[in-house]
């Protein structure tokens, strides 16, 4: 089962490697991992997408909690939450493809943020499936580069992860 685990941790050098090291040392999966400081610069917020049986996920949250620099851990997938991911995709855009790519980007509520004679850079946000769907929707041979941030997520409504 896919799980989205969100954590608050001390914004200190080395904290990220403790988390990633834990995953590799204990052979847990990481599908994506994103991290950045929060409104309180002493704290970072990290979102990890992982998969495993219930037992494995239980161990993952316990082991994360055990890391000294981890302040709080929550498994977002236990309840309602929203997820977003940002993708920048550079495509070859010439001839009739230019118009088609623009149309498809519009349908996906993407924005073209860089234009040259022969290429576009399209910015797209959404959950991971939407970004996958966009890639499926366009001609693969036109893709020059894709960059994805990985998932970040937040609980809906009253579910709040803070100190």
């Amino acid at each position, binding site marked *: 089962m896919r799980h989205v685990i969100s954590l608050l*941790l*001390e914004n200190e*050098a*080395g904290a990220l*490697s*403790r988390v990633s*090291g834990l995953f590799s*040392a204990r052979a847990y999966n990481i599908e994506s991992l994103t991290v950045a400081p929060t409104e309180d610069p002493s704290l970072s917020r990290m979102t990890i997408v992982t998969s495993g049986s219930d*037992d494995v996920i*239980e*161990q993952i949250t*316990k*082991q994360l*909690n*055990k890391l*000294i*620099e*981890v*302040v709080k851990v929550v498994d977002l997938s236990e309840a309602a939450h929203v997820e977003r991911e940002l993708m920048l995709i550079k495509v070859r855009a010439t001839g009739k493809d230019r118009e088609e790519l623009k149309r498809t980007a519009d349908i996906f509520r993407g924005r073209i943020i860089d234009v040259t004679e022969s290429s576009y850079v399209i910015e797209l946000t959404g959950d991971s499936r939407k970004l996958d769907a966009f890639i499926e929707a366009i001609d693969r041979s036109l893709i020059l580069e894709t960059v994805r941030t990985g998932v970040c997520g937040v609980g809906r409504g009253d579910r709040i992860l803070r*100190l």
Partner: protein
Amino acid sequence: MVLTGAEIVIRCLQEEKIEHVFGYPGGAVLHIYDELFKQESVRHVLVRHEQAAVHAADAYARSTGRAGVALVTSGPGVTNAVTGIATAYMDSIPVVIISGQVPVPAIGQDAFQEVDTVGITRPCVKHNFLVKDVRDIAPTMKKAFYLAESGRPGPVLVDIPKDVTAARCEFRYPADISIRSYNPVVKGHQGQIRKALQLIFEAKRPMIYTGGGVTLADASEKLIRFAKSLGAPVTNTLMGLGGFPATDKLFVGMLGMHGTFEANMSMQYCDVLIAIGARFDDRVIGDPAHFGQVPRKIVHIDIDPSSISKRVKVDVPIVGDVGEVLDELNRMLDATAERPDAQAISDWWKQIDAWRTRDCLAYKNSDEIIKPQFVIQKLYEITKGEAFVTSDVGQHQMWAAQYYLFDKPRRWINSGGLGTMGVGIPYAMGVQLAHPGSPVAVVTGEASVQMCIQELSTCKQYRLPIKICNLNNRYLGMVRQWQQLFHGNRYSESYMDSLPDFAKLAEAYGHVGLRIDKPGDVEGALRESFKRKNELVFLDFQVDQTENVYPMVQGGKGLTEMILSSEDL
């Protein structure tokens, strides 16, 4: 008061009332060594290899309960220490390791004796720090001792660049420390404890299974009270030996791969299992699927939530300090006359006593050749069971665990989790320094002992009168045993040729060395050696080459699938 970083390090150790530091000097720690030289309260013990410094500090902690301290230089000083750190980590032993680092501007430049210490040690410490500002030394040292000793204990490393030890700042040692992201649970959840007790009262075949957590929490007396008020059988893991008196009739022996028949059978067939400060590891329960075949309810008390339901699903988890939870259980037991059904308990004991009649630790003694088990039994007799016993890793370790009956905690010092060969002598050094005047024996083998044999020199320098019982079978005994049992008698690289004359080797280091060939000489040699109160005696026992450790559960097999003797092969 303005002090240098090096002065601050020493002041912090003094504030923590540290009496011994085990270490080895080098470029990056020279300022710290200079300050050590100028004072008397912190005594430095110069080992011969950094691995031994950490082992000795680790044993100091195991035998006293306070954090041990090791001091090593950068680069190879640290990499040599890693085995010691990992050993302490696996057994949850509080150790603070101070390592030198190249100066801050040189970090990342591939400087001489530079290594990414924080990176290399990260997976085998409870936590580690790189201190880049002299003002951070005192608070970091305070945190290091707090983290090492609180919650589930473990090693904590503080890496200090050389220029930071030379820089100056105002010194103030924090009186206490709080870390917002670290709040170990102490008290157990009341509701869970009550639930556990209810299960226990309904038990027909209760069983108490305890590990190193009881020793770490100094909860031995509380465990004894708890077990006695229930009249339930008790087994200890290798790490838990001494947590419950081995000579008590409630004790059914160690369990696990080389546990007693009765311990493994009662573990498997109990209906309510109370696990206390133990973690159901692979050497203890064997195949978890086989263990799960028998229905039973499990109560698990542990300070570390991640130890609970890791390998075996439990019914009533209780997160908390083992001592606090046992106190609470004892209070509740005192307040009620309710107990498990007396008839059921008596039937259970009849079954256990029937298992006991298998006498699974019996072995055939000999007049011709020394049996290793016999040496341990004599060691037990002569020391009246009151010695501190350290061991290395292998067959001799298992025999020591089986035949030396530990009645008190913190007397049995061995590497349970990591299984580090070579710990025996350095462990004995740490124990002897912590307990001057107490008898300290090392049970070792000719292979393990050579992994830290250089420490005989340290023992001479500090006049440590430890008694080394070398069960010399000219084989890597446990490897040979597995090869005999599971690899068709193909003894691949398990025979040791060209062994030194250990008696002479001990003499070369300035100690007393004895070689013992005949069973009739074992007792005399042991008595003689313990009479020499001020001398280290190396007893090289030439033991039966083919003796195996029984009972044995093959790796991956079920707990009750025991090989009880060579006749079962």
